[in-house]
């Protein structure tokens, strides 16, 4: 990443300088070789931007935010990406931020990310998002890759499980899937499983790509050619495995710790959100549900499909309350099938309520991540959105496959 030219990111905010987070924003930008800049505007435009843009916001700093967005769209400021941010819990800012993001997305090709901060927001929290933004802005040639060539490996060091694949000429020839305990040990174990299944030696691998939470550590350990955040890698892996590389698509990745909703065009992410206010909206809740019901996580899906979620009231907005309603419903005599169905529905409902309104859902909707293998989850999502949900083969290996695919770009280089 450091070999690339510095990426210019427009900071479109309503006063992050006053919130004690500016230093963290600068830090995360510097760590991905980006520089935050404040788009120049005509001061007189602040008097008219409310009517021009359409939102007559009471806060002048939100008017400044709209004026800066307009400067980006009109090309008055030359930037590679835009970071829109405002305070968490400010209703007016939430309205403006959302509309400003849609406005830039509609009227320009500049990639955009949006985030609401608190004074506790750190550079580490923003790392994946900022890395994805700079990748989309500057490494489009890498993301344009549609075929895996040569012999490459991908390792996805996730928060719950570590996945590894070996690929040769567009085929997965070996895979490993183990729980994440110690990051490097688990990655080594998964990698060895994959090598064994593929019948190849580590020295024969021509390029390695890593992704997931442990990507830096694992990447350094295996001397990976590509160390890449999971938003670009997973969207690439999803459209590749689903064979939907051209045109629009929406990728939903329900992870063990957080979820991603990504709107993709020709395999390149556009708008995306990384959610998970609480693990109640993630695979972790399903894991805990399976444990409480006394079934393996792999059996939860089949159980859920037999149940009726309507019979159990469950809201996993918070994982503690989610587990509480789970325990209460079992105590009242609810059937395990209905509880399993309600848990799947609740996770999907959280994604719908918290994330999906921030990306434009366009078909095909591709569901990936370990949770996609729990049959009740795609069913609940399909029931809720009233559209078909596509779960591609090997959907749990999405990050590893995406990494192996993108890493093959380094074989030819």
């Amino acid at each position, binding site marked *: 990443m450091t070999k690339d030219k510095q990426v210019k990111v427009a900071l479109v905010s309503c006063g992050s300088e006053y919130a004690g987070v500016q230093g963290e924003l600068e830090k995360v930008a510097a760590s991905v070789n980006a520089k935050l800049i404040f788009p120049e505007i005509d001061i007189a435009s602040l008097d008219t931007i409310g009517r021009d*843009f*359409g*939102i*007559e*916001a*009471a806060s002048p700093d939100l008017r400044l935010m709209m004026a800066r967005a307009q400067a980006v769209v009109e090309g008055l400021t030359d930037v590679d990406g835009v970071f829109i941010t405002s305070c*968490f*819990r400010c*209703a*007016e800012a*939430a*309205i403006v*931020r*959302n*509309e400003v993001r849609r406005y830039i997305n509609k009227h320009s090709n500049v990639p955009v990310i949006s985030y*609401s901060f608190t004074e506790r927001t750190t550079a580490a929290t923003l790392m994946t998002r900022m890395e994805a933004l700079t990748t989309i802005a500057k490494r489009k040639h890498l993301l344009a890759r549609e075929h895996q060539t040569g012999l490459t490996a991908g390792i996805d060091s996730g928060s719950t499980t570590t996945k590894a694949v070996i690929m040769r000429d567009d085929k997965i020839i070996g895979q490993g899937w183990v729980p994440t305990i110690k990051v490097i040990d688990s990655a080594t174990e998964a990698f060895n499983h994959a090598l064994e299944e593929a019948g190849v030696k580590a020295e024969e691998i021509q390029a390695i790509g890593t992704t997931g939470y442990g990507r830096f550590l694992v990447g350094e350990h295996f001397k990976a050619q590509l160390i890449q955040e999971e938003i670009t890698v997973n969207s690439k892996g999803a459209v590749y495995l689903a064979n939907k590389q051209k045109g629009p698509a929406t990728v939903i990745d329900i992870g063990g710790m957080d979820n991603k909703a990504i709107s993709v065009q020709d395999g390149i992410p556009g708008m995306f959100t990384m959610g998970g206010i609480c693990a109640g909206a993630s695979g972790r809740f399903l894991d805990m549900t399976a444990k409480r019901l006394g079934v393996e996580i792999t059996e939860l899906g089949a159980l859920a499909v037999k149940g009726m979620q309507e019979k159990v009231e469950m809201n996993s907005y918070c994982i503690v309350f989610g587990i509480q309603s789970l325990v209460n419903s079992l105590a009242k005599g609810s059937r395990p099938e209905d509880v399993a169905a309600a848990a799947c529905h609740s996770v999907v409902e959280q994604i719908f*309520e*918290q994330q999906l*309104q*921030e990306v434009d859902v366009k078909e095909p909707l591709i569901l990936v991540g370990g949770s996609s293998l729990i049959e009740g989850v795609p069913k609940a999502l399909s029931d809720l959105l009233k559209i078909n949900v596509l779960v591609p083969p090997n959907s749990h290996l999405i990050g590893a496959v995406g990494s192996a695919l993108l890493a093959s770009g380094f074989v030819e280089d």
Partner: protein
Amino acid sequence: MAKVIIYPINSLILSDLVERFGHKPLAMMEKIKEKVNTVGVDSPPLNITAEEPKMGLKYAAVEVPAGVRGRMAIVGPMIDEAEAAVIVNEASMAFGCMGCARTNELTKYLIRKKEIPILEVEYPRSEEEGQEFVYKIAEFLKSLPPEDKV
């Protein structure tokens, strides 16, 4: 006949004007009447339940307070349906008002964003301005297609 959304969304005077010129006003009163008279929903006085803020997610993100989203669940579909709009800015409370400034900002924005004929006028402060005000609205309403589109 055009479906005309009015702002303030509950202005009786505007609603009446739209109707007098042969168009269908899209106003809050009718929607609230539907809500209040809904049989089987027990959430008085307006019968707005926890479902409405969820429906409002189509128009505002989850971070936007539930009260804004609940209001948008009623106002949003009217904006979607609108074929024309009359917006009166800085109106007096008696002319019509929505109690939530955030909902008002979003409502006006979503109307403005739609590619439909829109008239924006300032609320009159004198008799002369009042006459001009009614004249502008009348001319605008006359310019809209008189017959049903379908």
